[in-house]
């Protein structure tokens, strides 16, 4: 499996996906090798049962981000070659998004094995159909990957439609396999009192949590505007924003403008264990994204037993059944976000029902199930690949 991110390098849902899937495949008895980028403090080589993680340093400088991506793919290719010598050729090469297309295609032809590509997102939706040269290059790589892959996986029905539409990929070549969660991760006991104290949530204040990269796509600016309204109805509350990104300064300024700075906490990146504790201690988790191919954080919040309020976009609208296991709101609408959040926070019976149904729903999204379906897709890829 080739992926530019793998824990502790967690940029987005892709990292959690590759971790969950590779661990589940290894538990099924398969030998799984993940080739990924190095990260400060992380070991270059890790081995756990039949799961091997190889973190590759990029030992040359690049002038731009996009040339750096091609450069790290070069080092991935070299690693694939080394591994093939050491362990033998794999049965399949699996790439994730445009970032590893060039090394994945190279590995396919070099080792003469089937290629599978998972789309977690597309440049078209991520950059709002930007016409920049960089976006055109990324779209070209996406098409190339979808063309070279014997089978394509989309993480939601919305993403399957998107891939088929953008790249003219035959729909029977695309398998829809949703992201998943590890339920056991959320079955641990947590000391909610200590967690709330850590983040200065005092005296029965309601905890509203949002998690993600601080980028325009995630809609946290809408949430901060909404929170100004929420505070009028529920003054004893705090908004905890977990994650970091280029928009952090802008969002901090916005919270100041909206007069909610003192009750908004920007936590930055936190550990996985802390995230589980925060989700389990939250009164509501809001996912206000403008675009979300899947939205794994909503599923994690549901698994943690927190009621969720999500934008009615992409994969989020597929995960959440409105008013049954969460509340859906129109994207780009701070008023709607505020109304839904206040409903959850002020109606205990509703919050309990949404949380219980959400937890039950999340159990259906297991990595074991996702791994089984991915394995079937590998087998289909082997059947149709010219190299089998």
């Amino acid at each position, binding site marked *: 499996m080739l992926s530019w991110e793998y824990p502790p*390098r967690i940029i987005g849902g892709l990292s959690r996906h590759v971790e969950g899937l590779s661990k589940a495949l290894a538990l099924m008895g398969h030998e799984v090798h993940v080739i990924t980028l190095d990260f*400060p403090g992380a070991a270059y080589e890790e081995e756990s049962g039949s799961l091997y993680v190889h973190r590759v340093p990029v030992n040359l*400088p690049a002038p731009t981000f996009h040339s750096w991506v091609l450069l790290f793919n070069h080092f991935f290719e070299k690693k694939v070659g080394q591994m093939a010598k050491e362990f033998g050729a794999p049965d399949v090469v699996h790439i994730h998004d445009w970032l590893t297309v060039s090394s994945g295609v190279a590995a396919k032809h070099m080792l003469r094995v089937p290629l599978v590509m998972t789309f977690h997102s597309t440049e078209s939706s991520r950059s709002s159909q930007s016409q920049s040269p960089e976006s055109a290059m990324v779209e070209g790589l996406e098409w190339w990957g979808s063309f070279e892959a014997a089978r394509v996986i989309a993480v939601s029905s919305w993403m399957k439609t998107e891939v088929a539409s953008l790249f003219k990929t035959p729909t029977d070549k695309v398998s829809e396999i949703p992201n998943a969660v590890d339920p056991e991760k959320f079955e641990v006991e947590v000391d909610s009192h200590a967690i709330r104290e850590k983040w200065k949530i005092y005296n029965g204040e309601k905890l509203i949590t949002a998690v993600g990269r601080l980028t325009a796509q995630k809609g946290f600016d809408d949430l901060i505007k909404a929170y100004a309204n929420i505070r009028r109805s529920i003054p004893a509350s705090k908004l905890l924003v977990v994650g970091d990104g280029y928009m952090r300064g802008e969002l901090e300024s916005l919270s100041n403008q909206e007069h909610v700075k003192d009750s908004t906490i920007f936590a930055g990146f936190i550990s996985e264990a802390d995230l589980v504790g925060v989700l389990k201690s939250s009164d509501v988790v809001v996912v206000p994204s403008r675009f979300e191919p899947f939205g794994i954080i909503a599923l994690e919040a549901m698994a943690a037993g927190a009621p969720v309020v999500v934008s009615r976009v992409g994969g989020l609208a597929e995960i959440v059944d409105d008013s049954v296991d969460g509340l859906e709101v129109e994207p780009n609408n701070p008023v709607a976000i505020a109304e839904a959040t206040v409903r959850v926070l002020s109606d205990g019976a509703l919050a309990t029902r949404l949380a219980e149904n959400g937890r039950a729903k999340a159990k259906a999204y297991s990595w074991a199930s996702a791994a089984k379906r991915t394995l079937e897709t590998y087998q289909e890829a082997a059947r149709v690949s010219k190299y089998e």
Partner: protein
Amino acid sequence: MSESSKRLLSLLMVLGAQSPEKALGSEELAAKLGVGTSEVEDELKRLVDGGYAVSIGKSGASKVYLTGTGVITASSTYS
């Protein structure tokens, strides 16, 4: 984060400044960005204060490299 901070953060990542051995100085970064050294030094201070980078060495000859948060933030618009 300002556009210039974003550019600097991204530059540190693509140049591989992720460890003390690969730390880079403000003069080298300024030359690559085509801006003044003092401007880069101000931006670097902001990145260090924000937890995105670590500064090593003596004042005037210090170098910086990215923290894990810096790496993730630099990557955050592309995933």
